[in-house]
């Protein structure tokens, strides 16, 4: 049977609503559904297949494709990279950057890498205390200057320290900042110019809705990132933000944050996310 527009109109609409309710941004949901529609109309389905199940399968395939884009193996990248590998964490305020750095540091330490942390948030009250407590708990070296110091200088010093001591990985924290704040985005560019990262990770939260598109796009344009870590997926979030970010930037999701403890970090599995999103 040839699939016609009329038979898939309602199933597509229902699926679009499901995507929106799962926190997929509306621009992204529209584009995904439109692509599915174009591909399905005129194509064939078996007599016993319902239009609805054909559409559902098409959506699952489309979502998997979006979210598996440019998949990277983080462990392989670290193991093959020339040391010290410098990783910078960026994102808007409160998304979980500092906590995520602690989780990554914990993971690398368990894999027997030597790790140094750069207290690159020299702005927010208690930021240096926060990351220092994490570093102490993990038994890792922290490079810090006083509050208000130039963040680029802190990060630069951390690289120098790592080179001198043959440290494998430098994890640089940066202050949260609005993607619309030109001065802060320029500051971020400066940090990356003075102490170039080998890898940039954008940290955003699963609970963010349509704004995930705006901020991922703007951050990616300003300081192109290599991958994203989506935090707070344990907050009963369907994780549609993963779809929005992957679709908008074409950059891969590396890990998911699933809680506030060091072990609450899981490797991103596209199938797991899509299945959870569609159910």
């Amino acid at each position, binding site marked *: 049977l040839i699939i016609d527009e009329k038979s898939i109109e309602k199933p597509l609409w229902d699926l679009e*609503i499901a995507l*929106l*309710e*799962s*926190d997929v*941004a*509306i*621009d992204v949901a529209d584009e995904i559904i439109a692509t599915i529609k174009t591909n399905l109309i005129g194509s064939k389905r078996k007599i016993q297949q319902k239009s609805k199940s054909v559409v559902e399968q098409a959506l699952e395939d489309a979502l998997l494709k979006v979210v598996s884009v440019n998949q990277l193996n983080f462990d392989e990248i670290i193991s093959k990279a020339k040391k010290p590998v410098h990783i910078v964490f960026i994102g*808007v*305020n*409160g*998304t*979980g950057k500092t906590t995520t750095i602690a989780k990554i540091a914990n993971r690398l330490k368990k894999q027997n890498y030597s790790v140094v942390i750069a207290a690159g948030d020299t702005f*927010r*009250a*208690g*930021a240096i*205390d*926060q*990351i*220092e*407590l*994490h570093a102490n*708990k993990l038994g890792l070296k922290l490079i810090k200057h006083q509050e208000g110091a130039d963040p680029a200088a802190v990060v630069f010093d951390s690289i120098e320290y790592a080179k001198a001591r043959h440290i494998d990985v430098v994890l640089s924290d940066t202050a949260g900042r*609005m*993607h*619309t704040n030109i001065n802060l985005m320029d500051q971020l560019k400066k940090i990356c110019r003075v102490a170039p990262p080998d890898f940039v990770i954008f940290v955003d*939260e699963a*609970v*963010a*809705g*349509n*704004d*995930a598109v*705006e*901020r991922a796009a703007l951050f990616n344009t300003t300081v192109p990132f290599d991958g994203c870590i989506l935090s*707070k997926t*344990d*907050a*009963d*979030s*369907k994780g*549609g*933000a993963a779809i929005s970010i992957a679709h908008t930037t074409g950059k891969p999701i590396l890990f998911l944050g699933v809680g*506030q403890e060091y072990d609450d970090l899981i490797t991103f599995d596209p199938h797991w996310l899509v299945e959870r999103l569609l159910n």
Partner: protein
Amino acid sequence: KLGGSLQNVLKRIAGAGRIDERTVSELVKDIQRALLQADVNVKLVMKLSKRIKERSLKEKPPAGINPREHVVHIVYQELIDIIGRSSDIKLGKQTIMMVGLQGGGKTTTTVKLARYFQRKGLKPAVICVDTFRPGAYEQLKTLCERIHVAFYGEAGNSNAVEILKHGLPQIEKYDVKIIDTAGRHALESELIQEMEDIYEIVKPDHKFLVLDAAMGQQASEQAKAFNNSIGITGIIISKLDGTAKGGGALSAVSETDSSIAFIGAGETPEDLEKFEPDRFISRLLG
């Protein structure tokens, strides 16, 4: 009153003598899209668009109002119905408890609130009962010191209830007592229990839910859970200085049967304003 892109849509039907079903359907679709883009709850958007469509087709515009203005007015009325009321914050003695999701801006907003009352001539005091987040005590203490606001906390103590038992008597003489708590979400049952324990001891006049303007469809569920747990009396939307529209606040208001008290748009203690429905709605539909 409505935002830019919706203004353009309305200009398109400006010439329309009477509004036909097709024009209304197209207009409602655009409004629907704007609301969804602003993170308003999907079910609420569907309910609103149905009402806007029905009213636009069935109600006759009042004398002297053209059909376009009439539809604008209906959209505006429907939104005002939900969030039109700004919380009534009395300028007197009270205790306020701050709750919300991790990273939503509670600590920063606690200091903004203290500053707000300080500017109004009242004496605020802040208590830190976030015993969980590394550096929470230092963060709040530093911020309070910067604006010369009394602060109580116990750096080494991991028991929030104990801190309150010691701290509340110490700040008895202050006018406005603000309690900053740790971030938590609906599925963290131990943390929800802790929040209820804190509530029992403090018996606050106000329980403000601090909501990140970028929060998506979770806003409704989370607001509901917090409300079921301790009863929310007001919503504070933070981080409105980015591009997020704060649509989640609509469900938060209806789920908690409360209103929006303040909006935060920046990281300094001065970046807090009383909520103004008109400005918020026009930005929402932008």
